[in-house]
């Protein structure tokens, strides 16, 4: 089990991830799964700026990640999956049963969302999608930083 975290966070690679989670989990690979970023070299360079030395960063579309997830989970490289939104997480979870836990780490206000936790804002459609992911057998919790307590989906969606 090399995939040590699958995180939904609209900031993708940023301070909480590289300083907090990557160090706490001793991750050596970040896989940023996003169709838009996968097709934009400038965005990839931007996100790569934040990756610490000794940590590999890979940019994949959702379909590429689904294709590669078995192999990545089977190798020895501790890996963090990063996803910007709930819909992308649903597509990923629909395409593989290897993802058993999704961490919601940061979804901000806007786009018809309402506050569920101080760092999680969701539209009703997004809440329904997360419940759908959970009903498919994936544990869904919210947790912004490694030292915080994970909060089960039932308490905030």
């Amino acid at each position, binding site marked *: 089990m090399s995939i040590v975290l699958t995180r939904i966070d*609209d*900031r993708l*690679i*940023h301070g909480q991830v590289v300083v907090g989670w990557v160090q706490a989990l001793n991750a050596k690979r970040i896989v940023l799964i996003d169709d838009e970023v996968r097709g934009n070299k*400038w965005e990839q360079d*931007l996100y790569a700026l934040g990756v610490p030395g000794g940590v590999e960063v890979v940019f994949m579309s959702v379909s590429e990640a689904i294709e590669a997830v078995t192999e990545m989970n089977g190798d020895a490289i501790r890996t963090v999956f990063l996803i910007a939104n709930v819909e992308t997480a649903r597509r990923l979870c629909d395409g593989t049963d290897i993802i058993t836990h999704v961490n919601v780490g940061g979804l*901000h206000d806007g786009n018809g969302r309402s506050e569920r936790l101080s760092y999680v804002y969701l539209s009703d459609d997004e809440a329904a999608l997360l419940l759908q992911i959970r009903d498919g057998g994936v544990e869904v919790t919210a947790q912004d930083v490694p030292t915080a307590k994970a909060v089960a989906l039932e308490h905030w969606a």
Partner: protein
Amino acid sequence: MSTSLRILSDMLKGVIVSHATLAGALVAAVKEITGDDGELAAVSNTGESPEGLCAAVRAAVGSEPAVVFVDMPGSSCLHATLREFRARDDVAIVAGVNLAMLLDFVFHRELTPEEAAARAISAAERSIRTVHV
């Protein structure tokens, strides 16, 4: 009077973009030391979406030449700043803000953004040292 105002308006603006309350605290520290906030503005990323942070940085900088200081490379603060200003050659961006660089900046706001940024970085580097008593 009008000449003086024109010169003041031509001077660089400084904007600090940080996590939590660091940016505001740095502005307060500069003011405490110099008696002047040196036209520094603070932007926090707390609670901001990526789009919201871009808008906040854009509003703080405005349309005049400026130097933007962000707290750390690879942060959402830097991402928003780069997204907003990559097409502007009158805005310089510095990652790794500290107090020493801001103190240098506020006294050299008559320079170009690139010149002021280079000076500020040099001042910051000189300020980091092991101190033996």
